[in-house]
């Protein structure tokens, strides 16, 4: 800006070369003989002297130069801090796994912010826009996080976001109050894929897999981009991670990875030279193995039986000597364990005793078949999962909200009485004018009394419940060592504008918004997931007379054990409840028959034999029988929503397990008051009862 002013107000520039010209100054002697225009020594006189000196050097200044020079300096002073601050922030964002993410899946986003100026406390905001203008269902989901950047600091922030549309760009903003310090948009078209990802995390993993398959997309990513949440791996089919990198993961990344494995993830980890030197503490927490040394080999013959190709290399390569339980070794070469497999919860962890980044493996022609076999060994996702229909859930949940209109049958007589009373008082005033002032007092009291009564009646039934929420929790246990998956359907109902905040607790559940039934309601669909000091919360802007539904999914270890063994003409069932809550009205399903187990109290063990003979206690599964048996177990009056959802669950079970004889299904209710919450909020699941669904493997 200063340079612009300089150019504008210099009429001509003549550079005078040579010392002689520079030394040729105009002095006050020019004015000898004439009345000097300025008092010698004054500012104007000095300016004329400077101007004269400059003119002699070839610079011809405009008389407005000084004025605009000062303005330019002031302008620079005002702009200076802002421009300096803007230049003081360097933000680098990496979407997905090294720039690739799977559409309609939760995706990690890593943002590295470097602050080269004064400290900043603000909010990092990620805006994901979904929907289509054509269908008029555009809405935004905001993911925000508190940031604290001291002077000259650099921090990495990891978020997990859900992107279900590539049409609109992803916006990354850094705010301080209402001021936007930084804003960037990322075009998603270049980054998305619709295939599940095969993830290779670490260095030197490029070109590791020759698989070019239409079913999966192979992605190579540094380990620092791995997500910090378990659901950040939602689009991942499998992850290959070098064993030495486990210790380099951030605590949150390790926790997220471990949780993902327990909830159905598939991780392959390979050992090499580094793994022999450093302890594998984190890995050993999931898979009991011990590295005892290294040995050099030239071939691994056992791989021929595994994938059809023997691994031979001209140069010797290293193999880790490990000790592990025999039950976990799925491939050994002689007495050397080569591949270990450990089921962790619902997922699987594989360990290779050889280095897949070594040239011996890279040059191996059988690596394609090897990887194909490895991917086939991954855990199979439970495709048939009970998902209640939204329509069948919304109305019952809505009908259970506490707010009600005041009863018309109470209010109508009240107002009728008011009008008649006022009529009585008003008619008396003209008739007895001398006592009119005395009649005004009871009139006023009547008005105030009836107004208070109307207010009180409406407050009791409606006004105090202007904002309310409820929900229903569905717990599912699959497998003996697996954590229980819980799904909580949260409904928020409001008659006023404002904001609703719901802390998500330390379990870090996966939260998704359930679409509204009305297309026009998408304008109310925006919400924010905010993270502050490691705790996430849901923030929903409220619009009067609207509702919102969310689905939360998480996993929790439950102290429940069960064993079912198939015996002659029956099943021996043993259920151990080591929790502090009771499981009420338990029903068991097997082979088209229902069996009643009753209630299982806390710290109770139930042993029962289920006879499968036609004369046994089992009742053939029919919708009517299900309803009768459910109602028989009710204690505190009808619970339509729980009844309806449990019935639908039973129908879903019958459909899924029609031809399966390797498991039995148990469904019961848990009193919500006694169900423990791991930390604040004390009642994370405000509902009446929780529905428990338990798949118990049947041993023969």
């Amino acid at each position, binding site marked *: 800006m200063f340079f612009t002013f300089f150019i504008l107000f210099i009429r001509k520039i003549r550079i005078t070369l040579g010392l002689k010209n520079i030394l040729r100054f105009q002095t006050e002697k020019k004015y000898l003989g004439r009345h000097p225009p300025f008092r010698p020594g004054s500012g104007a006189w000095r300016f004329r002297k400077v101007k004269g000196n400059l003119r002699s050097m070839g610079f011809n200044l405009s008389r407005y130069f000084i004025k605009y020079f000062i303005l330019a300096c002031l302008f620079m002073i005002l702009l200076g801090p802002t421009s300096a601050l803007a230049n003081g922030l360097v933000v680098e964002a990496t979407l997905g796994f090294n720039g690739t993410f799977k559409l309609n899946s939760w995706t990690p986003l890593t943002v590295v912010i470097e602050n080269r100026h004064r400290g900043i406390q603000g909010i990092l905001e990620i805006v994901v826009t979904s929907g289509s203008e054509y269908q008029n269902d555009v809405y935004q989901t905001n993911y925000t996080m508190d940031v604290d950047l001291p002077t000259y600091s650099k921090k990495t922030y990891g978020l997990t976001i859900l992107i279900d549309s590539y049409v609109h760009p992803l916006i990354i903003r850094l705010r301080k109050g209402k001021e936007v310090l930084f804003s960037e948009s990322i075009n998603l078209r270049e980054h998305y894929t619709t295939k599940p990802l095969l993830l290779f995390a670490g260095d030197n993993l490029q070109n590791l897999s020759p698989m070019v398959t239409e079913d999966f997309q192979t992605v190579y990513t540094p380990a620092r981009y791995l997500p910090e949440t378990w659901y950040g791996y939602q689009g991942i089919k499998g992850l290959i991670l070098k064993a030495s990198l486990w210790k380099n993961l951030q605590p949150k990344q390790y926790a997220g990875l471990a949780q993902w494995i327990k909830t159905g993830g598939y991780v392959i980890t390979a050992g090499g030279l580094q793994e022999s030197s450093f302890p594998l503490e984190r890995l050993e927490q999931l898979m009991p193995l011990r590295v005892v040394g290294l040995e050099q080999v030239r071939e691994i013959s056992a791989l021929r039986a595994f994938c059809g190709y023997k691994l031979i290399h001209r140069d010797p390569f290293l193999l880790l000597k490990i000790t592990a339980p025999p039950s976990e070794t799925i491939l050994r070469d002689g007495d050397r364990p080569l591949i270990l497999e450990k089921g962790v919860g619902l997922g699987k962890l594989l360990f290779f005793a050889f280095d897949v980044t070594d040239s011996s493996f890279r040059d191996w022609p059988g690596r394609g078949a090897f990887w194909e076999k490895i991917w086939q060994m991954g855990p199979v996702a439970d495709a048939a999962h009970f998902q209640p229909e939204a329509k069948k859930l919304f109305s019952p949940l809505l009908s259970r909200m506490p707010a009600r209109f005041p009863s018309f049958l109470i209010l109508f007589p009240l107002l009728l009485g008011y009008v008649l009373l006022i009529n009585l008082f008003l008619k008396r005033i003209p008739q007895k004018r001398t006592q009119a002032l005395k009649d005004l007092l009871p009139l006023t009291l009547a008005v105030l009394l009836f107004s208070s009564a109307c207010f009180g009646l409406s407050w009791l039934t409606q006004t105090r419940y202007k904002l309310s929420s409820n929900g229903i929790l569905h717990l599912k246990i699959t497998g003996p060592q697996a954590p229980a998956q819980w799904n909580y359907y949260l409904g928020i109902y409001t008659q006023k504008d404002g904001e609703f905040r719901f802390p998500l607790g330390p379990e870090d559940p996966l939260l998704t918004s359930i679409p509204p039934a009305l297309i026009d309601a998408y304008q109310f669909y925006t919400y924010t997931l905010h993270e502050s000091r490691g705790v996430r919360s849901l923030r929903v802007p409220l*619009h009067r007379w609207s509702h919102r539904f969310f689905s939360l999914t998480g996993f929790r270890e439950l102290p429940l054990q069960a064993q079912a063994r198939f015996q002659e003409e029956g099943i021996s069932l043993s259920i151990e409840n080591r929790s502090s809550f009771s499981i009420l009205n338990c029903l068991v399903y097997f082979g088209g028959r229902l069996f009643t187990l009753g209630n299982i109290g806390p710290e109770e063990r139930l042993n029962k034999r289920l006879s499968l003979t036609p004369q046994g206690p089992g009742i053939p599964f029919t919708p009517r029988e299900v309803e009768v048996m459910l109602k028989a177990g009710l204690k505190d009056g009808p619970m339509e929503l729980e009844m309806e959802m449990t019935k639908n669950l039973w129908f879903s079970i019958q459909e899924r397990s029609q031809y399966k004889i390797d498991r039995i299904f148990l469904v019961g209710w848990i009193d919500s008051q006694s169900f423990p919450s791991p930390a604040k909020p004390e009642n994370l699941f405000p509902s009446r009862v929780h529905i428990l669904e338990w798949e118990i493997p049947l041993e023969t």
Partner: protein
Amino acid sequence: MKWNFIFGESEKDLSPVFSSNMVSITMGSLWLMGIILVLTWPYSFLFQYLEGFQIPPTFLCIFVGGLIMISYLNLRSALGEIVPDSFFARLEREGVTTFEEERDYLTYGFPQSLFHTLVFHLLLLPFLIIGAAITGISWSNFFLGLAILFTASLLCRQVSFFLLLTLGRWQVSGYVGARLFYFIFLFATAFIAPFLNPVLLLVKLHYGERVPFGPVIHSLFPFFAVVLSSVLFFLLLNQGIIRRHNRKRSRA
């Protein structure tokens, strides 16, 4: 303190608050408000309104109905149209200068206007509270709605009294002029100056950001600024006219 404007029923009282005819008309407005409440009562369950993202219309209908009724009653009261039902009532009042026209407006006529408007609002208060509570209106919006009703009806009364002072009582021009102002202020301003229209402002309080028709009015301040300024203007104007008339009479 002169109480004529509250209880008086002589020919010199323009529109006593508790005269027999006024009481009948006031009771009629109460019954009408009750009918509006019955007609606009949400007979469906509350959750069904939430499920359909619908807002019960009770607040809007009650307040707009109250606005129309109170403003019109104030208009008629200020024009002196509400007289006893006897055959000679109008004859007795022809050419009679009422107390409102001869006494100081600031100490008599204006307090009467305020008091009468307040009485109307107090009598309708239970209906207004129920209407606001059913629609889930906040306290601040409820009082804003009351303020809109009060100021709008007071302005109608001021303007009508001005027309009475300038054009005379029971004149066709005054009759038409007052109703023309009523129509323009309550309805026509919706098309000319929406920020001045009290009905649209009540619609804004009812629907919030989800106004289904008309422009979105972001602030009620311009309305109150204009209306209160107008009230003050007509107050001074009416006071000046009454003093001028009194001077003329004293000279005569």
